[in-house]
């Protein structure tokens, strides 16, 4: 088996740890989101939610805990969408010609980038989890150590597949673009609806039907569902509502993310195969 995607991966990681400032900000920024937005929002939301009587037997969580899954998802989304950007820089000013001229299947390029996207996203997710727990996010509440491990594995599994989907998408876009500015524009255009038409910050049940449909096929919604299932539990109440995620919901969400990753992989592979770099 050709394992040269590890070479592509190695180089991407080399750059990841080399740019200290970028690395640092990518780790600190989501923590800041959680700290400022999360705490500000939860102080007002939790006051409203406390007026709603608790349903016996269903654990109630604060807004900070509720939105933490959203912050993990959003961070993974940003990191992954920008993961393919390096391909654009390589194409315009760097090493892509050298990589393309090598006697190696082009799929290695896509796979290597995917792997580095997974690594970066899992590191970030871990940091947010840690920082969140310090800030008072009630993840893994009442879990045994074994259950906690399972939950973390589950979360990272969702993060990984989700990251793959968007890194591949980003790679496909990068290969079709001429300039970083253009790519930046497309990214902004993409992230807005993905982020806000999802259950990351608020429940989707109150959305108008069209938005609900968008949200239902939105990978971010499925990602958030997976994280909440593993981190909080299949049933909980937050912001005055009860949330129930069945095992079937979980499987559907995971399946949807896998499908998304498979489609974007095919797209990226096609783009990289037809690309001509001279």
């Amino acid at each position, binding site marked *: 088996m050709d394992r040269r995607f590890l*070479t592509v991966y190695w180089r991407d990681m080399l750059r990841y740890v080399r740019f200290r400032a970028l690395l640092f900000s990518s780790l600190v920024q989501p923590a800041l989101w959680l700290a400022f937005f999360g705490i500000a929002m939860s102080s007002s939301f939790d006051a409203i939610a406390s007026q709603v009587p608790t349903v016996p037997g269903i654990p109630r969580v604060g807004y900070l805990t509720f939105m933490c899954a959203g912050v993990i998802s959003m961070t993974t989304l940003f990191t992954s969408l920008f993961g393919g950007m390096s391909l654009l820089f390589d194409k315009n000013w760097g090493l892509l010609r050298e990589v393309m001229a090598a006697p190696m299947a082009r799929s290695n390029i896509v796979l290597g980038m995917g792997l580095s996207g997974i690594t970066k996203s899992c590191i970030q997710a871990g940091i947010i989890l840690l920082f969140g727990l310090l800030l008072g996010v009630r993840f893994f509440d009442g879990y045994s150590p074994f259950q906690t491990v399972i939950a973390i594995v589950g979360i990272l599994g969702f993060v990984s597949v989700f990251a793959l989907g968007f890194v591949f998408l980003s790679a496909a876009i990068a290969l079709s673009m001429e300039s970083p500015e253009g790519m930046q524009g497309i990214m902004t255009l993409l992230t807005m609806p993905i982020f806000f038409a999802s259950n990351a910050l608020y429940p989707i049940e109150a959305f108008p039907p069209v938005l609900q449909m968008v949200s239902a096929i939105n990978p971010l919604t499925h990602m958030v569902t997976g994280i909440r299932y593993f981190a909080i539990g299949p049933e909980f109440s937050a912001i005055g509502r009860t949330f129930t995620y069945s095992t079937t919901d979980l499987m559907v969400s995971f399946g949807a993310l896998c499908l998304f990753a498979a489609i974007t992989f095919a797209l990226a592979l096609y783009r990289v195969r037809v690309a001509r770099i001279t």
Partner: protein
Amino acid sequence: MQEEVIRVDGLSHRFDDLIAVDNVSFRVHSGEVFSFLGPNGAGKSTVINVLTTLLPIQEGEVVIAGRDLRREPDRIREAIGIVFQEVTLDRDMTVAETLEFHGRLYGLPRAERRERVDELVTLVELEAKRDVLIKYLSGGMKRRLEIARGLMTRPTVLFLDEPTIGLDPQTRSRMWDYLRGVNKEGTTIFLTTHYMDEADQLSNRIAIMDNGRIITEGRPYQLKNALGQDLIYLETDDNGRTQTVLGTQPSVTGVRRKGAAGLLVTISEDGTRILPRLLETLRLDGVTVTGINMKKPSMDDVFMHHTGREIRDEGPESFGAVRSRRR
């Protein structure tokens, strides 16, 4: 007869309706240094890009290192090294990392990689810069690194697209030394250049390309000898008359304008004997010669003769001007 390492027959390449390469055929033999000369836009890089599999082959047959380009492009990729015309380096990687990366991409085993990196860093005298980021290297160092990278896999053929562009004369001549050394070790070299002296000194054979075609091909001395034994540069008070008069002389093979006031006369016999006779003829015809110079033809003259202009690197404006003047 030596073994053919590159065999190109009837190669053509178009970009939309622009014919960049037009029915080009040539051979490169094992152990040779083969140069492509030609003005900007002649199609040199396009030929290299097709031969190195970066552009798809459209028309023609190409065999490199015994492999057919259409059927086994990956085998060809394994057999060649490339130094691209533009710098193709990651500014944020070190010298050693760049070579290591290349070795891995080409599937060299770890031990061999380490050994090659050490060897090549020494060869191109970058030992002191081994762990320095590429953004801190000078242009010449980057070019040397790229040559070293092209040699990582001990290629059968090394393709170099203007390897010495933008280098100072000392660095250039050092680069020639590396290339000669590499060539002596058995690597066949295919290079394009805009420096006539470089082509003249380095190559076993030269092909001159213009407008997508190979106009002439041969060993440097053959190309120069084909222009005749000597070149005479004349300035007279009536260049038009001189052209007519000299055109009738049997020993004169050509008279062309050169510069604003001069004429370049190519002759087929020894200039030291013929020049006095020509001057006498002109005097009898009432032409006054105001300046004179005689020299052996250089590669510049060969280039000039075949492409109708001297090579220039002044950018698109002057190129456009030359273009519109031709034919």
